[in-house]
């Protein structure tokens, strides 16, 4: 069996020599000997190589090169794939391919003529152009060709429906595609796990190795590693997707550069970073929020309900808002989420029903927040991003930017007429979230609610350089031992979070008026620090914590005829 690591290999060889082959695939385990700096994909995919397999390993990136160090026991061919596609590179690559051809023939003791190879190459080229046509016209056919040529499993469903989501970036698994499909939409996989990796501009010439070299180096959509620019525009022009999901891998150097290009286009997109360890829950929120953003608000339903309930099940607290048919707030409450998000939501709901004296038949529930999936009595689910945008825009119709700082995550959204036009989220580390303040509060022994006020009493402007909670902790302790006052340190801590948020604000090109929401919005220290950094005045709603739930309730109400 031949194992290859990336589709920049000469598949023609494997077919012509009739040797079974497969691609490495990320598994469940992580390879602990590769340093954590190495890309998440490699760290799990290296485990899938078995000792008796013959490797055709390309040096497609630093992570792949370092992974190869661990595979020395296998018989292998290490193939340098040039990053350029000019004549000099094509010729060099052709000679490398020729060496690989000889290697495979000897290793597997096969004798196949160059004529036969030539024919196989021609067959491959024909099949791949058929594949390109089939991608839009006949997914079933595309699947068959793709699997035949590359021996990889097709990712995603074959029935076209909903909106067209173009998936770009690094090797993506079916989990990513599933998120799109569960929202009722169709994915076109243009990552290197999809058919587009096999499509090239070919020019066949007299030397078969040069022809194959050209096929590989002239990929229609160049990989991120190539010196050539990735022509996303032409790809997008061809498929006209409704939205784009840019799938990047943690510690991969290449694909996040696409974001710069996507920002110049008009197609809504979202970037997700996959570390192949968590269950992609954070990516789910981002993708769903993006899809909600472009959703045509469907036909209004003939709802008989008179109570419209929004439940925002966050990681620390659950909020409920109940509206009547005129959109007036009848009830509003917050409680801790605890270990069972469904349970806390149910309790709030029961409490509302008892207080307002209505029953389940008479209400329409929209759930949002991280725990939205668990709330089985909800009629609809929406991401908290969309709900925040709707809720805040209801209170402040002119709002253009929303900064929401929650306990475990923070998000900055640019909105226009109640719809999100761009957003970024931070939910992977404590930096820039309420969690960071909690840590500071416990080190300095200042109650959370008092921290902001205290920070404003600072006498000098200290600087905490780190926003990583672990590092900041030791920095704070050392400041403390140097005798700085609590107030001064608090000031520095608030500025540190504000700096993170300001970067996010810049990333989406935020514009005033800006509304600050979330549990941390009531912290004057943070508000102050942010205003200083951004140079704009921030508006804080009376109930900054319930805007998500309010938005959810409003989304329900909007559906009533």
């Amino acid at each position, binding site marked *: 069996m031949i194992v290859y690591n990336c589709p920049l290999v000469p598949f023609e060889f494997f077919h012509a020599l009739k040797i079974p082959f497969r691609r490495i695939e990320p598994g469940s385990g992580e390879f602990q000997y590769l340093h954590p700096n190495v890309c998440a994909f490699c760290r799990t995919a290296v485990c899938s190589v078995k000792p008796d397999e013959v490797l055709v390993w390309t040096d497609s*990136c630093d992570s792949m090169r370092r992974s190869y160090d661990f595979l020395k026991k296998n018989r292998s061919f290490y193939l340098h794939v040039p990053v350029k596609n000019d004549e000099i590179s094509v010729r060099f690559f052709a000679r490398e391919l020729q060496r690989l051809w000889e290697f495979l023939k000897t290793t597997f003791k096969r004798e196949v003529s160059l004529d036969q190879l030539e024919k196989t190459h021609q067959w491959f080229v024909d099949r791949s152009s058929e594949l390109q046509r089939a991608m839009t016209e006949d997914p079933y056919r595309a699947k068959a060709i793709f699997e035949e040529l590359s021996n990889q499993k097709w990712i995603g469903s074959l029935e076209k429906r909903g909106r067209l989501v173009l998936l770009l970036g690094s090797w993506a698994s079916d989990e990513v595609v599933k998120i799109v499909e569960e929202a009722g939409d169709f994915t076109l996989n243009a990552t290197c796990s999809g058919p587009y990796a096999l499509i090239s501009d070919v020019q066949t010439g007299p030397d078969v190795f040069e022809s194959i070299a050209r096929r590989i180096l002239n990929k229609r959509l160049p990989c991120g590693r190539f010196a050539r620019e990735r022509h996303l525009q032409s790809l997008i022009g061809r498929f006209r997707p409704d939205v784009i999901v840019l799938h990047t891998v943690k510690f991969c150097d290449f694909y996040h*550069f696409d974001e710069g290009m996507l920002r110049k286009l008009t197609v809504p997109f979202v970037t997700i970073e996959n570390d192949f360890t968590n269950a992609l829950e954070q990516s789910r929120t981002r993708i769903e929020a993006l899809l909600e953003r472009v959703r045509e608000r469907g036909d209004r339903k003939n709802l008989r309900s008179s109570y419209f309930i929004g439940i925002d099940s966050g990681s620390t607290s659950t909020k409920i808002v109940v509206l009547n048919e005129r959109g007036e707030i009848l009830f509003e409450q917050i409680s801790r989420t605890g270990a069972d998000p469904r349970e806390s939501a149910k309790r709030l709901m029961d409490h509302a029903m008892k207080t307002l004296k209505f029953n389940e038949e008479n209400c329409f529930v929209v759930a949002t927040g991280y725990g939205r999936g668990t709330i089985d009595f909800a009629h609809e689910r929406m991401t908290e991003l969309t709900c925040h945008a709707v809720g805040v825009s209801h209170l402040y119709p002119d709002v253009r930017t929303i900064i929401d700082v929650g306990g475990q995550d923070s998000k900055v959204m640019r909105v226009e007429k109640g719809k999100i036009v761009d957003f970024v989220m931070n939910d992977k580390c404590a930096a820039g979230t309420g969690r960071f303040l909690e840590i500071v509060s416990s080190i300095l022994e200042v109650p959370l609610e008092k921290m902001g006020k205290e920070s404003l009493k600072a006498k000098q402007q200290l600087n905490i350089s780190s926003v990583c909670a672990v590092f900041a902790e030791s920095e704070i302790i050392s400041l403390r031992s140097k005798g700085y006052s609590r107030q001064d340190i608090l000031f520095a801590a608030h500025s540190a979070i504000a700096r993170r948020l300001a970067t996010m604000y810049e990333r989406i090109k935020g514009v005033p008026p800006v509304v600050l929401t979330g549990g941390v919005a009531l912290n004057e220290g943070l508000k102050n620090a942010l205003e200083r950094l951004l140079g704009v005045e921030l508006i804080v709603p009376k109930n900054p914590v319930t805007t998500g739930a309010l938005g959810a309730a409003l989304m329900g109400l909007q559906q009533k005829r």
Partner: protein
Amino acid sequence: MSKKSVAYGKLIRFFWKRPTTARKLLKFGVELELARRKTVAAVKNDFSSWIDLSALSIVASAFNDEEIALVNLFFPTEIMAGFGLKCVSAEGLAGTLAAMQLEDFALARAEAMGVSKNTCSFHRAGLGLNLLRMLRNVKAVAVTNMLCDGNIPVFRTMAQLHGVEPVVLDVPRTFDESGVEYVSRQLENAVYELENQLNRKFDHRRFEEQLKMELEIFETLREIYPKLCERPVKLHLYQHVNLLYVLHVRPDVYMLKAVRSLRKQLETQVEHIDKRFFWMHLSPYYDNVLNEIFSKHSRYTVVACELSWDWMDWKVDVSHPFKSIAEKLLLNPLLSGVDKRIQFAKRLTLDFRADGVIHFNHLGCKQSSGSVEFIKRAFDELKIPFLSLDGDCVDHTNSSAEQFKTRVEAFLEMIR
């Protein structure tokens, strides 16, 4: 790296919202320091003063309106000498910002265009500086993927910003005849491309002069190597970074003076060194506790840094310049599998009689730290203490002094 730079950085920080002023201040500060280092070097005439001067003179070109070529650390800069362009490396500029603790502006700028926080901060800060329009007279952008592929998209983006076509040098991972031919053809082609782009002729004489200079620098180092191994000179940790930076980006007349004075120094002075260390990959360039632990005045001395000697298998051949440069790149012991690198590291460690080895894992640098496990095993076999230290060379907010301290001190206790 010094408190002075940090203080000056604070001043610039104050004016950061006004790029023209900030740039002027940066230029002024660098030139002032350059003048100081010139005097120091002239008076002291010793190895470390000349390398400090040489390193800063490279950075100074970036801000004093000379015509520059923006390159990465491993790009063969000799070519640019033939076009009269001064080379400045993006990594070096990132380091300069870090020394003043101003890198956060550049990092934030790169992040704002979507560049992931998990990628090498040399790249991010280098790119950010360009996005901030701090570099004015960039005539060429050139990059090689020889050690690190992450360079390519970064330099592609920088070239776009400056409206030029990037010169890209693709380096295969093994040294053989076809590889040498491939790289030398690319070099010749690069000269041709640059002639068109710059609309000027390539000056072979200057190109050869540069190579001759390198011949003298590297041959002198080779000649004094045995002595240096025996009695290394004391340098601050950050000066090793200066040294490797100069040796790669611009081995110039200052560097020549540095090696000449080193030869003299070795004849006379004997410095007492308590414990010797061999350093692998780079080290943080901002003011940090590692520079204190491994300062010139400490009992713990870094005697050699891997990247200052990666040219050792190479001999300059002025009569076949392109081929010779191709050989330099392909003979780099860090280029291919980890085994070669290990052999090289062992050799230096044993030659310099190091008591311990430290490998710095710069965040996001896969090529250097990916298989550090094997390097560790190799030194374990030799029974030489080895420390694999994680951190960030540029982003000072991404490391913790306390963590460095605890780890390194525990390691030093092992050796004592």
